[in-house]
């Protein structure tokens, strides 16, 4: 009996990956492997100024001296960094004047993914930057945003057009040599998004980047930098998918957020990289460094993530609470099934006085997967009257999966308060039967239960994303009352 219900539950979660197609577009690639020449090749491809190349080379030389971290609760065979192509760009006309100039094959790709690049067709106001493999191919609503002084473009373009801003902020939150994967990214990053919100401006629309790995044997190393000046506000969304391939592909991104006084940055991610097949073959290694700094007083950074994809996820979106009265938040739903492994969480570093952080982490494990929450709450000696609240809940589907929680708490003063709550539960036969008895089939019942479990985090997502995220969790919201 146990097996019957659980296999139904599992079927529900184990729905097939829908984004696994490959688009046949001609790509312009770097030779396989990594050395200083490749770093120079990438920099030259992007027509970068000397200072950028120097920055990359410095990071690369450091990387050579570093070792891959082994402390995460994940297992994988050694990665051969010489087996990866570090630069791949869809071949297209050199410069794009409008979205209409995009390769029609690529456009069809994004139609399949449900992302319209056609500004006229977009009903809701979401500006999108699209990154395929190594380059940004389109940014929508650019003009409209620039009227407000908002800069939203690819990082390559920012290096060309706004070098002072890039020089000032790039690496200021995640230094080039912060960790193994951040150093690798700093050496070979190829594109990503740049976003600057000037003083006092509230972005009138969601800014969003859509990442897609398409080419074979390529790694994706994008870099995103968001700067919110005094009193500004921006909500930023990030989505990602990849084709189904038998080999593992590496994704090592860096995201840096800077919030000045009274500024607020809300960063949401729906991560749906290809997780590998049911036997654990293939899938993306998602080794990402995401960090924000609340530089000014009363600033706020909020991370929300829905992690459903990747063979391995290694990711800790963090906040450095430097300004007094600043606020850091982390809301996460991480789903693992089959052979997926996730080691994810956050780091809240309280430096300013009266700083507050809130962590809500929901892990859902199925199949033979392993799901770990790893978090650090550090409160400095001078961060008096600071507060943290952490809630880490795990939901298990079946009895072959694992959920682990590694909370680290360091408090260096005695006026601060840290609270940590954790629960682990299983989807019970009793819950499913209760739903069945009200006329609800098992598949819908599981969706309702998972949805309920993740609700606190899903509520943090902007509407457009919440819908996609709920679908991803195999949740039908047909039964909701608005």
């Amino acid at each position, binding site marked *: 009996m146990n097996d019957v219900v659980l296999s139904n539950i599992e079927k529900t979660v184990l729905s097939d990956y829908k984004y696994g197609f490959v688009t046949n577009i001609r790509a312009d690639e770097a030779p396989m492997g990594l050395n200083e020449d490749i770093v120079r090749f990438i920099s030259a491809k992007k027509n970068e100024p000397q200072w950028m190349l120097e920055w990359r080379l410095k990071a690369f030389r450091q990387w050579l001296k570093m070792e891959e971290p082994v402390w995460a609760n994940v297992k994988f065979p050694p990665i051969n960094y010489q087996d990866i192509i570090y630069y791949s760009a869809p071949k297209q006309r050199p410069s794009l004047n409008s979205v209409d100039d995009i390769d029609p094959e690529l456009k069809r790709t994004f139609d399949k993914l449900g992302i319209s690049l056609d500004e006229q067709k977009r009903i809701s106001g979401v500006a999108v930057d699209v990154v395929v493999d190594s380059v940004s191919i389109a940014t929508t609503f650019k003009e409209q945003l620039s009227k407000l002084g908002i800069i939203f473009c690819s990082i390559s373009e920012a290096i060309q057009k706004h070098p002072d801003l890039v020089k000032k902020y790039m690496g200021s939150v995640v230094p080039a040599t912060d960790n193994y994967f951040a150093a690798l990214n700093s050496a070979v990053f190829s594109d990503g998004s740049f976003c600057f919100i000037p003083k006092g401006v509230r972005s009138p629309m969601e800014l969003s980047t859509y990442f897609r790995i398409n080419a074979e044997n390529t790694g994706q190393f994008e870099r995103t930098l968001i700067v919110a000046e005094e009193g500004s506000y921006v909500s930023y969304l990030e989505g990602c998918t990849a084709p189904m391939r038998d080999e593992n592909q590496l994704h090592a991104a860096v995201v840096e957020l800077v919030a000045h006084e009274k500024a607020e940055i809300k960063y949401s991610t729906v991560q749906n990289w290809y997780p590998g097949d049911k036997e654990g073959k293939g899938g993306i290694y998602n080794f990402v460094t995401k960090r924000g700094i609340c530089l000014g007083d009363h600033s706020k950074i909020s991370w929300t993530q829905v992690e459903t994809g990747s063979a391995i996820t290694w990711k800790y979106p963090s906040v450095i609470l430097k300004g007094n009265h600043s606020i850091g938040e982390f809301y996460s739903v991480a789903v693992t099934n089959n052979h997926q492994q996730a080691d994810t969480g956050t780091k809240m570093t309280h430096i300013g006085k009266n700083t507050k952080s809130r962590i809500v982490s929901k892990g859902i494990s199925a199949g033979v997967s392993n799901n770990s929450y790893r978090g650090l709450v550090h409160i400095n000696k001078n961060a008096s009257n600071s507060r943290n609240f952490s809630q880490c809940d795990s939901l298990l589907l079946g009895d072959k999966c694992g959920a682990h929680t590694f909370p680290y708490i360091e408090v260096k003063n005695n006026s601060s308060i840290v609270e940590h709550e954790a629960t682990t539960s299983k989807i019970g*036969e009793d819950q499913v*039967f209760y739903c*069945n008895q009200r*006329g*609800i089939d*098992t598949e819908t019942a599981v969706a309702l239960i998972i949805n*309920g479990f*993740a609700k606190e985090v899903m509520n943090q997502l902007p509407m457009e994303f919440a819908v996609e995220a709920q679908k991803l969790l195999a949740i039908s919201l047909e*039964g909701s009352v608005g």
Partner: protein
Amino acid sequence: MLKIENLHAGIEGKKILKGINLEIKAGEVHVIMGPNGSGKSTLASVLAGRENYEVTEGSVEYMGKELLDMSPEDRAREGVFLAFQYPVEIPGLSTTNFMKTAVNEIRKYHGQEPLDAVAFLRMMKEKMALVNIDQSLLSRPLNEGFSGGEKKRNEIFQMAMLQPKLAIMDETDSGLDIDAIRIVSDSVNKLHNKDNAVLLVTHYQRLLDYIIPDFVHVMYNGRIVKSGPKELALELEEKGYDFIKNEIDVAEEA
């Protein structure tokens, strides 16, 4: 409406029901009483289709169909409702959302269009008034942090929403104080009509001060050993279950 014939069932190889026979017609209220461990709740679970119980013999005809061949959700969609003895909690899912899903799943089964938000809320308001339940309770996650009484009232509210043909109430009175029993019974009486039927499973006679049954059945050791009019319940109350036990044990020895 319901005809149970020679029903045998058990769990993990242990026999619990040993030949139940019972017929319930539309418009009737039946009560099954009996000491702990006599199989009352097992009967309720088997009728609702809980999968860990194994039926080894017998049949259950419901509205002209074999109930035992139907999945639990199809039984519910065909109008079988079980008010649970221990309603489960589902964190993060409000009763409102839960009920909207249930109502529309049942409508879909019967080829009806789903109710829109307005029509659904109207229905909710009407049923809330009928069973005297507060809106705030329904916006909270399903049964989470509810008191025993609140859980049972939520069961009755769901019953009002789903308008079952056959309502099976498993020890709905257990854990309730006398005021709560009165409110719950009152709601059941309001919901009962000539087209539906109620099967009450209870340990105590006190519920029957408020819900008047047409038939009382006494269950002992997996069988219905005595049936009679409502007065039988009073006799049980007076003499306790021992007199039944003695009667049966004597008969079996003979």
